[in-house]
């Protein structure tokens, strides 16, 4: 009894001594796992077989490392950044529009790739991605990437639409009825980039080179397009469950959507499909990042290593509608047996414009920053 008390005190004292060291530089060696791990993730991203017992990549981890995983889901990147203000979390699966904010906000710490044996299996296209590498230092481990698809009702569209114009320009859908009231747009300011991507191809004279870097004139043209779209929308989707219901019950025919939504609707035998039109698509590249004050760093490193195993990568890609960051995972059979790398656009990496936080300083001098994106998008959704 007494010896266990002494041990406990020793652990407490030593951990309080180690904690400040963690802040200064990445861990050099891994100690004993702490037994717990708290992760902030996108819904459907860290599954323990509760939605479908074939998709479970947590139970095996818990068994082999003894780290009990608890997951807090977040619906938007902004929510993830805000949750990371609390030191209760160890890891976050941050998208590109959050990762830089987290790094500059000093909410995440540099990691040591030497402690992650699978680091060298990473796809070279993402290995030193500029959305998580700053000054040559990695601030996390790539997790998955994917596109924002154009999802359409395949009864209305006999052939996949080839352009995002079906969402932006008034006109008739292939069934002869107008698209007004049958399209949806995403309820988040980052969607402004989708409109910019479309304009980049439709109106090259505007000179948009990057949908996340817009000067005043380009930004004004994009907002004009979005106001036109407001008149066409059924509503702005926010919640994937509500969006699925709108496709099933409300006659919505086409929308931007996540692969996850398309997979779920297809699993319910509802006639939808997803495509990446000729303009390309916006997308997200997610990184598992370590909190600057992580309470369970050893378990966190164990998870970062675990997250790169081929089985997890392939199962997750099929489940979530995303792409693995380990190329070999494309050849690893997923539980559903689908050719997920083909359908999720693994070979179209170059056509995807990954989410990034728009900042005032940019390639063409000065650009409109994200704060204005937020304010203006709220105004447009409100019909102004």
């Amino acid at each position, binding site marked *: 009894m007494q010896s266990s008390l002494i041990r406990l005190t020793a652990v407490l004292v030593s951990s309080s001594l180690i904690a400040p060291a963690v802040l200064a530089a990445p861990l050099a060696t891994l100690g004993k796992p702490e037994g717990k791990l708290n992760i902030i993730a996108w819904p459907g991203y860290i599954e323990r077989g509760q939605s479908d017992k074939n998709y479970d990549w947590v139970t095996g981890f818990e068994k082999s490392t003894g780290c009990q995983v608890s997951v807090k889901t977040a619906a938007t990147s902004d929510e993830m950044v805000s949750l990371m203000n609390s030191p209760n979390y160890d890891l976050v699966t941050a998208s590109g529009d959050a990762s830089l904010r987290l790094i500059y906000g000093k909410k995440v710490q540099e990691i040591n790739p030497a402690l992650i044996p699978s680091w060298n299996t990473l796809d070279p296209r993402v290995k030193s991605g500029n959305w998580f590498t700053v000054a040559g230092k990695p601030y996390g481990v790539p997790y998955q990437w994917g596109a924002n698809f154009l999802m359409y009702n395949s009864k209305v569209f006999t052939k996949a639409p080839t352009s995002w114009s079906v969402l932006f320009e008034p006109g008739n859908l292939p069934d002869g009825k107008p698209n007004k009231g049958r399209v949806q747009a995403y309820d988040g300011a980052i969607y402004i980039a989708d409109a910019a991507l479309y304009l980049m191809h439709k109106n090259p004279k505007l000179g948009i080179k990057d949908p996340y870097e817009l000067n005043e004139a380009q930004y004004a043209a994009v907002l004009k397009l979005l106001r036109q779209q407001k008149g066409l929308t059924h509503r702005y989707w926010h919640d994937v469950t509500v969006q699925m219901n709108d496709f099933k019950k409300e006659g919505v025919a086409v929308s931007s959507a996540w692969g996850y939504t398309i997979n779920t609707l297809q699993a319910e035998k509802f006639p939808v499909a997803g495509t990446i039109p000729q303009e390309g698509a916006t997308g997200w590249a997610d990184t598992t990042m370590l909190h600057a004050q992580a309470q369970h760093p050893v378990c966190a490193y164990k998870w970062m290593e675990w997250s790169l195993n081929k089985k997890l990568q392939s199962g997750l890609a099929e489940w979530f509608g995303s792409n693995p960051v380990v190329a070999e995972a494309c050849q690893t059979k997923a539980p559903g047996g689908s050719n997920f790398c083909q359908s999720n656009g693994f070979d179209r990496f170059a056509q995807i414009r990954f989410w990034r936080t728009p900042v005032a300083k940019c390639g063409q001098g000065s650009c409109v920053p994200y704060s204005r994106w937020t304010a203006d998008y709220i105004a447009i959704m*409100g019909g102004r």
Partner: protein
Amino acid sequence: MMTVSLPEGQTTATRPGILLRLGGALYRHPGLQLALLLALPLLWFMLVYLGSLCTLLAQSVLTFDDFTMSVSRELTLDNYRQLLSPANLDVVLRTLSMATLVSLASAVMAFPLAYYMVRYARGWQKGFFYVAVMLPMWASYIVKVYAWTVLLAKGGIVYWAYQTLGLQGIVDWLMTLPLIGGNSLTTSNLGRFTVFTYIWLPFMILPIQAALERVPANLLQASSDLGASGAQTFRHVILPLAFPGVVAGSIFTFSLTLGDYIIPQLIGPSGLFIGSMVYTMQGSIGNMPLAAAFTVVPVCIIGLYLLGARKLGAFDAL
């Protein structure tokens, strides 16, 4: 030595002595009694209610850095300036007009029901009406609202009912109207208004019912003895006496609509309400200062409303 060996009777006598003296002190100082009684609830009220309100006010003048999305302690009035931007004023007006309309509609629907409950319902009927009004309040609010999203969807039971009655044309026409219309009932302001009114109606019925209970029956008899018609009695006797109840009920319906953030998210068009704006700013963007500034708006509106309600005697009816 002498003091140690006190006779036993004396020591026991000191015990009731303390209680007696305490009782006497309380009796002589009624203020002390009151203070003891109220200290705990007052402390609770000051800390939990006023304390949080003050923290809120303090937060609303802090600065929010858009890039790192963190709050710094520099003081600014910028958040209040932002409130005045057209898009944000839209949010306030949108919420305010919905709250007003919902309160009016609830009052119009609640009054006859409450009147029947008080004047005509007898025996088992009285119990039935009480339970019928209270019953929906026992079910979870979230469940009820999600149920409405299904009821109001195209292919839902409301559309089905209209079709079966051959009234489809009326819904389609309503949906083409500006302001109240939309693509379907679930995405229209009419649908949102319906759900709000459904959810808050019991909060209007009960205060009106309480106010009507207090209208003496002999006044109504006197009114008809003096030759007043039913309508005259209603206008000159019942309504003025029960009106504080209507105002009291409207305090609930108005403030509850003003602060709600779930119904606007699930039903109706995409424009934000004050509640959902606060939720977005605080919950998903982390812009606590602007969220706090937005929260000050309903606090002020309700403050003014309560002042008006007090003039109309609403607090006598609670």
